[in-house]
Every structure is written in structure tokens, then in C-alpha cells.
């Protein structure tokens, strides 16, 4: 069984299952072309916790809870639960912070970039192109000897922080806890945050995806990185299966609408779609995994991946508190108004590129 998951066919089948389920989640209620978006869902979760107050993007996303629990399950069943930490945790926080700012300027992490493409949103091509460039810059640093240093085995408690955090989120979601007047868990009444599949379906999909991805090491960034570094197409074959399966399901359920303008929860500001994802790609490459993979590793007990996730959670909050995230295209009086990031969002991307490049340049194994 372990062999199957490590095989080429194993990752292709797993990628296809995850992709098909992600496309189906839209049919079951998730926002358009957003069956699974790790960045957007982290942002929604940050909003639900009141870390930002953008009223349209607040919901505790059960898919992410499932990612952690499914990966934990896979790790426990196959004796891969290994609490570890200590590889430049603060830098990982910073990488998570800027990764999600870049992703939210584009309006999606690599997961959603691929799903947007599978739904016909051609702006995703700019995002994916930027993402590839960002990963390539990360590879340049890696080849120069970039390293965040070694993690070490640590106590079990470190490995249990994220699973416990996931369970607490699940309880807050299930019981819609309110901590008093004006101190609720926030749930969007309109906008993307209000669109979601039934909780148990989302959770189940998350667990299945988390389990499969933990077993196969599915990674939407590693797919690109391994091709650039060593012409290794193993992970890419999983990601291609993910895209093709999502595309076929979209065709079947009538959710494939090709074009650039006025795509759902997307903007056609090409430059910033591109640059936002350069920042995201670099950050994920330097952190050793896409946002999904960070959740799966956190489920395996990787405390540094958990810190990265908390960096994303805080970055998402800033992205909305400081008005950095991209604004979708709008149709006003029959005319297209192109969205994109505010000036502050653009500045944040540039600052992020400089800081992340400085990390790539200076962090080396001693």
C-alpha cells in the first residue's frame, strides 16, 4: 500500500481524486472556481476569528481542518507522525506572511490558480506564469546553498498543536460560538465567505485530500520546482491530473467558462496577477512546500510548517486590514471595471519581494 502511494500511478490517481472533489465542492456550495483555495480559506478563517473585519470573507473552512486531520491520520497509520521543529521558525512565519499577501493580491494560491484555469479563468495563466517565475527564483537560491537549517525531533506536544488547533476550530464552527455581545465568531452573510458546502461534506473532502496528499507528498509548488531543478515530473504528474480532473468535472457540471474579463472572484490586472504570484511562488519555494503541503506537514507533526501557517493567518489579516488584497473585476452599468490591488497592495508586493529575496540570498547552511 505504501508503495502504491509513492508510485507514479499513485500520485496521478490521488491528484485526480483531489481535483475532482475540489471542482465538485463548487457544485456543493463553495465559491466559484474556489472548491479549494488554501490561501483564501486561511483568509476566511482569519476573518471568522475576527482577525480582520472584511465582512464578505469570514468563515471557518472545514476543508483546512480536514487537511490537518487527514494528514495526521495518514501519518499515524503509516508511522510517519514525527514531531519536529527548529528550522528558522521566525523566517518561516515571515515567508507565510508574504506568501499569502502575494496570493491574495492575485486572489488565490497555486491550488486556486490551477482550479481557476480548470474553470476557464484565463487570468490564472498570468498567475501561474508568475508562480513559475517565483519558484524558479527560489530554485536559484536553493542551488546557491539556501537553507533554513535543520529541524530536530521534539516532544509530542509540538506535533499536536495543529491537530488540537484544528479541533478547536471545528468546535467553534459547529457550535457557532459567541463570546458575548460583539464578540462572535464571524460568518459572512454575503460574498465568498457566505458560499460554502455543507460542513460535513467539506470536512470529509478535506480529510480525504489530507490523507491522500500526506501519503503521496502532493505539492503544487514542488511540482514546478522538481521539474526546474532536475527534470523530475513525479509531482507534476499529480498536479496535472488534479487540473485535468477538475476541468473534466467542470465541463460535466457546466462550470467551464473560458475568458479573461469578469471571471468570478478574480481580476484581469495582468501585471499584479503576475507579480503577486511571483512573491507567492518564491515564498513557498523557500519554505519547502505549497500552502496545502504546509498543512499536511503540520498534520505530520512539523512545527515549522505550523509556524508558516500562523504566518499566513496573520498575513491574511493584514491583507484585509491594510487593504492589500486584490479587488475583483466588476461590471458597472454594462462596463467592465478592472480590479486589482490598491497602491498599498502593490507596495506590499514589492516590499515582500525585497524581503523574501533577502531571505533567499542570506540564509545559507553554515
Amino acid at each position, binding site marked *: 500500500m505504501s508503495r502504491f502511494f*509513492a508510485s507514479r500511478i499513485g500520485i496521478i490517481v490521488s491528484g485526480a481524486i483531489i481535483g475532482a472533489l475540489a471542482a465538485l465542492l463548487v457544485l456543493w456550495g463553495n465559491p466559484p472556481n474556489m472548491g479549494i483555495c488554501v490561501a483564501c480559506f486561511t483568509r476566511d478563517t482569519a476573518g471568522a476569528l475576527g482577525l480582520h473585519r472584511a465582512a464578505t470573507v469570514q468563515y471557518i473552512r472545514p476543508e483546512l481542518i480536514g487537511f490537518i486531520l487527514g494528514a495526521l491520520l495518514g501519518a499515524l497509520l*503509516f508511522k*510517519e507522525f*514525527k514531531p*519536529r521543529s*527548529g*528550522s528558522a521558525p521566525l523566517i518561516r512565519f515571515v515567508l507565510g506572511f508574504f506568501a499569502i499577501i502575494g496570493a491574495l493580491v492575485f486572489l488565490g494560491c497555486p491550488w486556486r490558480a490551477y482550479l481557476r484555469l480548470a474553470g476557464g479563468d484565463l487570468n490564472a495563466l498570468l498567475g501561474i506564469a508568475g508562480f513559475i517565475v517565483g519558484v524558479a527564483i527560489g530554485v536559484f537560491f*536553493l*542551488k546557491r546553498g539556501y*537553507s*533554513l*537549517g*535543520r*529541524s*530536530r*525531533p521534539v516532544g509530542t506536544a509540538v506535533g499536536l498543536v495543529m491537530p488540537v488547533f484544528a479541533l478547536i476550530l471545528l468546535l467553534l464552527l459547529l457550535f457557532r460560538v459567541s463570546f458575548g455581545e460583539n464578540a462572535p465568531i464571524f460568518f459572512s452573510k454575503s460574498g465568498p465567505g457566505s458560499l460554502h458546502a455543507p460542513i460535513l461534506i467539506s470536512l470529509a473532502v478535506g480529510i480525504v485530500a489530507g490523507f491522500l496528499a500526506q501519503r503521496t*507528498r502532493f*505539492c503544487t509548488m*514542488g511540482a514546478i*520546482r*522538481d521539474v526546474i*531543478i*532536475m527534470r*523530475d515530473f*513525479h509531482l507534476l504528474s499529480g498536479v496535472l491530473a488534479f487540473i485535468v480532473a477538475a476541468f473534466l468535472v467542470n465541463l460535466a457540471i457546466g462550470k467551464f467558462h473560458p475568458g479573461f474579463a469578469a471571471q468570478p472572484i478574480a481580476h484581469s490586472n495582468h501585471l499584479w496577477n503576475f507579480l503577486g504570484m511571483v512573491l507567492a511562488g518564491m515564498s513557498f519555494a523557500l*519554505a*519547502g*512546500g505549497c500552502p496545502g503541503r504546509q498543512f499536511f506537514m503540520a498534520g*505530520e507533526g512539523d512545527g*515549522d510548517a505550523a509556524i508558516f501557517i500562523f504566518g499566513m493567518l496573520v498575513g491574511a489579516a493584514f491583507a484585509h486590514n491594510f487593504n492589500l488584497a486584490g479587488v475583483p473585476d466588476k461590471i458597472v452599468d454594462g462596463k467592465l471595471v478592472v480590479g486589482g490591488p490598491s497602491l498599498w497592495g502593490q507596495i506590499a508586493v514589492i516590499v515582500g519581494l525585497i524581503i523574501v529575496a533577502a531571505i533567499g540570498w542570506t540564509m545559507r547552511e553554515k
Partner: protein
Amino acid sequence: MAKVVDARGLSCPQPVLLARKAMEEGEFPIEVLVDTGTSRDNVTRVAQKAGLKVRVEEREEGFVVRIEK
């Protein structure tokens, strides 16, 4: 004596990069020490792709991936 590459605790893709560097240097056998299943699978895959023989041994603190011609 096997050449030992200690890749324990390193993030992806550093274990693979270190293993590849050792393979290019051409001194066999090579023992790559890793501490996660992911690194074990990745190092195994890259060595097998290069047409080399691989044997994995499980130890308490992780795995030894032994690469031979």
C-alpha cells in the same frame, strides 16, 4: 567505507540536492541519512532514476538510504 550524507532535518528539496551532489562526485556507496518518509522516497526515486541500486534501512532516528552502483 561508505560516504555519508547527513540530510536529517533538512527541508525539501535539500536532501535530494545533497544526494545528487554526492552521486555526481561518483564515490560509491553513499549512505544518505534522512528522518522523514518524504525524504526517503525522494532520495530513493532520484537514485533509481539514475539507474543506481537503492537499499533502505530503518533506524530509530529515521532511515539510511544506501546507494550503490
